[in-house]
């Protein structure tokens, strides 16, 4: 059942499915993408994470060939998507943000229609099974629920058995249960050996699904790597202990950001060892016990919020 279809890019660009360098795009005076670089390896799930309006959809649409860039180098499966060769669209699958299929056809007819566009389509039964629509094959599209329509979108993008799949905000507007189902689906796709490029503004989604991720803020990549790499990148940690009678003196030398909530001090630091030493030394000298002392590494959410916050502020100041 499995065919060798990698010849072309095995020779052209080893294991990189997507490569971007110096990508730039503006709409009039709005600079949507301001010089970004990253790459995506074969058979990995790569997430482009960023707040709304950060340029995610512009980036993914440039990769899909839906939009032209102003500057920079883009290589997708050995093609320049702005001037795609005849085989480019046969090897990618696109799930757009909006559903776009005939409402009066059935699920099966819709998938068959799209299978007909490709030289080596994926078998109908397999497509139905991967997206979990086997029981709904005879249902007309307009009678499907929102979540089922989204799965049909994925089915349609799989019809041509693509090497690379683009998912643009696949779970926006989903309730938590539907989101879990969608995540299951993406994990299924990964087991098929597909390279998956997804955009999302849900930090948790990127953390759950992605092998590697890039954080995009206001048209710039501010971090790229595995979730683990990002979390350990700045050694960002939080030291917490309960406020006591004379604890205020303990933090007099601490220069990091400190918050006091519900009687608990939280110190956010990029030098946890040094900061902790300052505090515990003071405490030892004074013979104080620190109640509820914890040191925790940053979650991806901490990193994400920190990066999106500072970057957004910087830009705002920069723009006056």
């Amino acid at each position, binding site marked *: 059942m499995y065919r060798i279809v990698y010849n072309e890019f095995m020779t052209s660009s080893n294991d990189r499915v997507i490569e971007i360098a110096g990508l730039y795009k503006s709409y009039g005076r709005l600079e949507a993408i301001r010089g970004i670089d990253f790459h995506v390896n074969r058979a990995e799930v790569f997430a482009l994470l960023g707040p709304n309006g950060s340029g995610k959809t512009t980036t993914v649409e440039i990769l*899909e*060939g*839906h939009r032209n860039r102003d500057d920079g180098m883009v290589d997708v499966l050995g093609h320049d998507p702005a001037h795609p060769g*005849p085989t480019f*669209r*046969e090897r*990618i699958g*696109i799930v*757009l943000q*909006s*559903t*776009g*299929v*005939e*409402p*009066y*056809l059935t699920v099966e*007819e819709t998938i068959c*229609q*799209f299978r*007909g*566009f*490709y*030289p080596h389509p994926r078998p109908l039964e397999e497509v139905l099974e991967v997206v979990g629509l086997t029981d709904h094959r005879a249902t*007309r599209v307009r009678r499907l629920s929102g979540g089922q329509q989204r799965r049909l979108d994925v089915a*349609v993008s799989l019809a*041509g058995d693509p090497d690379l799949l683009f998912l643009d905000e696949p779970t926006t507007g989903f309730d938590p249960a539907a989101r879990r189902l969608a995540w299951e689906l993406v994990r299924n796709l990964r087991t098929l050996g597909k390279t998956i490029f997804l955009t999302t503004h849900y930090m948790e989604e990127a953390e759950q699904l992605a092998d590697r991720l890039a954080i995009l803020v206001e048209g710039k990549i501010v971090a790229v790597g595995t979730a683990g790499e990002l979390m350990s990148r700045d050694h960002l940690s939080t030291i917490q202990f309960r406020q006591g009678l004379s604890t205020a003196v303990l933090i007099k030398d601490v220069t990091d950001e400190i918050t006091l909530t519900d009687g608990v001090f939280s110190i956010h630091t990029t030098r946890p060892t040094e900061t902790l030493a300052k505090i515990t030394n003071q405490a030892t000298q004074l013979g104080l016990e620190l109640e509820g002392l914890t040191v925790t590494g940053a979650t991806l959410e901490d990193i994400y919020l920190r990066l999106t916050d500072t970057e957004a502020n910087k830009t705002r100041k920069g723009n006056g």
Partner: protein
Amino acid sequence: MMRKIQLGIRQLRYEALAFTRNPAAAFFTFIFPLFVFVILNQLFGDLVLQVEGGETNSATFYVPAIAALSVVNACYTGLAMSMTFSRDRGLLKRLRGTPLPVESFLIGRVLFMTLVAIVLVVIVTLFGAVFYDIAVPTDTLPALLITLGIGAATFSILGLAITSFIPNADAAPAVVNASILPLFFISDVFMRIDDYGPKWLLLVGDLFPVKHLSQALQTAFNPFETGTGFEFAHLGVIVLWGVVGAFVATYRFSWEPRL
């Protein structure tokens, strides 16, 4: 090119399938021209019309007139509406991300609308022959078919061109109707304008392709016609509109939903 046509024919099947799944829309598409035909015959039925070669009755005028209406309705109105809806629903953008050639998609949809138009013309002609005793064209049949083909092609192109001026699907009926309905009154479709209209309205009608289509069809249906029934001057004007429409459609057409 063969593969593009093959894919286009395949698309045509899905167009037809989707069409039959909406029986109410299908029924009224086919019944509408008959409504108009019967009503106009009731309103203006007693007229005796002078045509080249002799005198005819109103039904002989209204069969080709409603044939023209059918072509315009299916190809221009139908295509403009369906393309706008497909565009706003994201179908066009989705198809553009697949290997399906643009031409194949257009072949499928335009051919489908043309088929609808031909079925409508057959229905009106048979209805006229059975209930109003009009003569079905025989010697002029090639002229009739070619005129219908040129009309269908031009009005399909114009339907695609007007789509680029329609901001969103909600605005489609208003824009399309406003652009075509007034023409039916001054283009020998609802009535023979020469009998009623002021001179300047005749001239306005001459500028647009609807009147040329209906007059070319009048000749093909004229029972006294002795020649082949081709109206080359009228066909020329129709083709000219098709060429202009093709330029507009090529340069302005957008595949993205407009919000």
